[in-house]
C-alpha cells in the first residue's frame, strides 16, 4: 500500500485547530448559531471535544447576549468581567456537565419562538365581566393542564374568575357590605 506523501509544510504545532490553544477556535466558533455549532461537532475529534465542553458554549452565549453597558468589576471569575451574565437559568439541573449548552439552546429557541409572527400561538381576549370599570387586581394559577384566573375590580367591587384558555368569565357573587364609618 502506498501512503500519500506527507506535505512538508504541515506542521502540527501551528494549526489553529490545535488542541493546546483553542482560544482562537473558540472565539471563531462562538459566532455560530447553536444549530451550526452542533453541526460543527461532526468535523473532527477535536471539534467534537470542543463542542462538548462548556467553554465554547459559554463564549457563544456571551456573543449572543451582549454585555451590559456598565462595566462590572470581576471578583476573580474565570472569564473576563464583561462575560458574566446574571440571570435565572431556564433548565433544571441535569447530570451532564454541559449546562451552558442546554441553557444557550433553550434560551435562543424560546426567544425565537416567542418572537415569531402573529400567526403562531393562541391569543384570547375576553371580557372580564367585572363591571364597567377596569380590572385592578388579578391572580392566576398556571398548571400544566389548565389555568385559572381571578380578577377583581376594586372600584366596582366585583370579583370574577375565568378560564383564560376558553375565555369564559364567571361572575362570582359577592356581597360586600358597606363599611360603617364610625367617627
Amino acid at each position, binding site marked *: 500500500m502506498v501512503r500519500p506523501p506527507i506535505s512538508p509544510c504541515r506542521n502540527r504545532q501551528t494549526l489553529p485547530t490545535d488542541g493546546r490553544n483553542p482560544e482562537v477556535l473558540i472565539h471563531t466558533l462562538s459566532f455560530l448559531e447553536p*444549530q451550526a455549532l*452542533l*453541526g460543527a*461537532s*461532526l468535523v473532527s*475529534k477535536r471539534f*467534537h471535544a470542543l463542542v*462538548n465542553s462548556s467553554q465554547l458554549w459559554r463564549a457563544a452565549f456571551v456573543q*449572543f*447576549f451582549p454585555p*451590559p453597558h456598565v462595566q462590572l468589576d470581576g471578583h476573580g471569575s474565570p472569564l473576563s468581567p464583561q462575560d*458574566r*451574565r*446574571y440571570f*435565572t*437559568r*431556564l433548565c*433544571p*439541573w441535569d447530570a451532564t456537565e454541559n*449546562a*451552558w449548552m*442546554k441553557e444557550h*439552546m433553550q434560551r*435562543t429557541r*424560546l*426567544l425565537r*419562538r416567542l418572537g415569531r409572527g402573529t400567526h*403562531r*400561538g*393562541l*391569543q384570547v*381576549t*375576553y*371580557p372580564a365581566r*367585572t363591571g*364597567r370599570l*377596569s*380590572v*385592578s387586581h*388579578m*391572580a392566576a394559577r*398556571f398548571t400544566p393542564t389548565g*389555568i385559572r*384566573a*381571578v*380578577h*377583581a375590580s376594586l*372600584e366596582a367591587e366585583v370579583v370574577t*374568575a375565568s378560564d383564560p*384558555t376558553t375565555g369564559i368569565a*364567571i361572575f362570582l*357573587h359577592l*356581597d*360586600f*357590605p*358597606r*363599611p360603617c*364609618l*364610625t*367617627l
Partner: protein
Amino acid sequence: MSNSLSQGKSRGVGKARVLIGCSTVYTITGGFAFTIPMSQLRWTWVSIGSWIYLKSWDGKVYSVCSLFENASNVFEKKNRIMGENVPNGRCYVHLSPYPHFYAAALDYIPSGNAPGLANSTKYGSKPLVTCVWIAKKRSVCDSTGAAVVVGNSRGFIRVFSIKFEKCRYTLAHVTSYCISPGIPIVQVKVDQDFLPRRLRQKRPWLVAINALGEVYYLRDLPNSGATDGWAMIPQTARIPTDVHKDVFPVLAGLSPDEEKEMHDRRIGLLMNMDYSKVKEIWEECRMDWFIEVDWAGQNIVAGSRSTGSGTARDMPRLKRYHLWKAKNDGAPCRIAHGQDGRGASWSKSVFNAATDSSSSSSSPSQSGITTPLGELSEDGKEGQRDEWMVTALSLPNTFTQITAHSMDNSRLARLTAAEDPAFRDGVPGANGRLFAVGTNTGSVFVYNIRPAGGGLLDDSEHRPTAPPLRTIHTDSPRITTLGVSSLVVVHGGNDGLVQAWDPLASTNLAVRTLHSRHSRRRPGQHHGAEAAAEDDQFAARCLILDPDPTTLRGIVALGTFVRYWNLSATDTKKARKTWAGARSRGGGTPGRNRGALQEVIHNDERAMRLEREGQQREAARLEERYGVASGRAPLNEEEMLAYAQMVSLEAFEAESSSRKSEVASRLGSGGIGTDSPDGFEGSTGMVGGAAAKAKDPEDADLELALRLSRHEALVNEMQPEDRGGSGSVCQGGGQSAFTSSNLGHGPASARPLSGKASSDSHRSPPNRKATKKKGWEKVSLDGDEGYGAYSAWRGEDKREHELEDDLELAIRLSLQEQVSQGKGKGPAQ
C-alpha cells in the same frame, strides 16, 4: 350622623381614587380622590400630601390615612380578601367552603374597636386596614399556620388561620403583633414556598415594612409561643426630625421603672396621635413604600415610589438588603453600620434620639403586644444578630416616579440553595434573580437582586451601588405594570401596549408585542356616570406570567378585558427537522459511532435531494407560467464554451474542406493563370455556399459586403492591366470555364448563381470591368491581398498567399459578375 354612605360622584385629585361611597377604599398610586356622598354634603375634605383630613359637619376633624392598593389581595381559589381602609375598617375575607359553591360565607375581621368607643386601644385608635395578605397555597397555611395576615395603620399585624369546621371555613385569630406602634404597616409579604424544611433552617417567613421604611421580619411561627422573633433590618431604622425632640424630649437620669412607665405613656400617645403629627416626628413617613422579597436568596428590596413632586426629599429610591450572615451562624458578629448613614446599633428605646451609636438614630421598636419596648434589645446577644448588607440600586435621575415593579417568580428562582440540586458556582447565570421597575417615563430598569458573588459572599467589600443590568426604553408613556420571568420582561403601559423584552439584551427591540395599542379588537370603552375620571380603560393594569418560563404563557388585564397568550403551541405542520442537531438537542453532539454518523449522512442526503427536487419543481413551475426562463443569457459557462467550440469546429471544417477543394482544382486544371481564379471562384462559390450555410445571416451579409468591396478594388486594379492580356485570358478563360464551370457547377450546385457568376465573370473580365467601374465606388483596401492575388494571377508565383489572395479575388469577381448580369448582358453569353 348617618353612617351609610350612598353612592356619589367622584372627583379626581392626583392620580388615584378613593371611593368611600362604595364599600371599599383604596388608592391606586400615592394620591387619592374622594367621593362625596350626596347625603353628606356637609363633609368637606382637604388633602395635604398624602393624608386626608375629614371635617365633618360638627366641626370635628378626623384624619384618614391615604389609601393604597395593598388593601386587597386576591386568592385564586375564589377566596378573596379586601380590607377597608377607613377608620375602624374591617377586613372582609370571602372564603368559599367548596370550589363549587360560589355564594359563600362572608367573614369579616373586625377592627377590634367597638364602635362608639373612640379611644379604645386594643389595636390602636381607629386603625385602618392598610395591608392584607391571604395565602395562595395550602402548604403555606399548613407550615406556618397563617392563612391571613392583616396589618393596620397603628402598627399592628394580626395573623389568622383558617379552620375547617362544620362544612365551612372559618377564620381564627392566632396572634397579633405590634411591631411599630403608631406607624402604619404599609406592606406585608409572606413566603409562599414556605415549607417545614425552611422553618428548620430558621428562615424568616414574614416581612413587613412600615410607613417609615423600616423593614421587619419574623422567624418564629405565630403560634410557637411567646418568644418574639421579630427583627428589623438595622439599616432601615427611622430617622427622627427636629420635631422629635420636642415631642419626645430626651429624659435622662430615670430609673428603669420610670423609664418603662414613660415608655408606655409615650407609646400610648403615639397610638392615638394624628397621623399628620406622626409624620412630622420622623423623616420619610410615606405610604408608598414597597418591598419585594427574594426568600430563597434572602434579599429584600425596599423602595419608595415618590409622588413625583420632584423635591429632594421625594426622590425614588431602591435599596437591596441582603442577609449576609444569619443568626446563630456561629460567626463572630460585628455591628453592621449602615453604609448609607442610618444607624445600626440597638438602643433601648424608640424615643432616644441620641444613642450610643455613631449616628443619631433611634432603635427599632420591636415587641409583642405585651412586652414593652426595648426589652428585647440585643445588647446582650451579640452573636445572635443578623447582618445585612445594603446596596442601593441606582436609578438615573431622569424620571420622578416608580410606577410598577415586579420580580421573577419562576420556580427555579425560588429554590433555595439547599433545595436546588444544581447549585454550584459555575452554573449558568450565577443564580441571579431579576427584578424590574418601571417608571413614569416609559423606561424599565432590570436588576439582579442577588449579590454578584452568586450568594456565596466571599468578598469583604461590596459596592454601595449597583447599576441596572439592562435599561429598556419602551414606547409607552408610562409603565403601569410589569411582569418578569427568567426569559423575558413584559411591560404594560398606560396606552395598552404590552411588549416582551429580553433582559439579556440579545436585541434592543421588543421580542414580541403581545398587545399593540392600536388593536382593533378593543370594543368601545364605557363612558358612564360611574366611570371615574381617572379610570384609564386603555391601560394595562395587571400582568401575570406563567412561573414556568418555558411555556410562554401569560395574562394581562387591559381595562375591562383580559388577554391571555400561549405561544408555546407546537408546530404540527412542519415536520420535525431531522438534522443532527435536533436529535441531539437533549443529549449533546451526535455521537461518533457508526450508526449515528450514517444516519446523519443519510439525513443530509435526503435533505439535499428534497431541496433539489424542490428547486426543479420550482423551475418547472416558473417555466410553465412565465415561459422559458432561459433564453440566451442563462447559458452557463460550459455550455457557452461548447457552443463556441462547435461553431469554430464547423468553421474550421468548412474552411479546410474548401481549401482542399481549391488545391484540388488548381492541381487539376494544370494552368497557372487560368484555373486558379476559376478554382478559386469555384471554391469561393463552394466556400461561399458552405459558409453561407454554416454562418448566420449577419455573417453572410458581412461576407457579401466584403466580397463586394474587394471585388471592386480588384476591378479597379485589373482594369488598366487587363487590356493586354484579355485575349489570353479569354481563351484561357474559355477553357478554364469548362473546367471551372464543371467544377463550379458541381459543388456549387446550391449556389448556381454564384457559380455562373463566377464563370461568366471570368469569361468576360474586360467587359465587366469596363461596365463595372462606374458602378462601384473605389474602396481603398489595404488591398495587398487583392493586388497580390492579381499579380499572382498575372503570372507570378502564386504559391505565396495563394489561397487567401485568390480567394478574395474570386469573391470579387463573382460579385462583379452578379452586378453585371443585372446591368446588361455580357458578350460572352
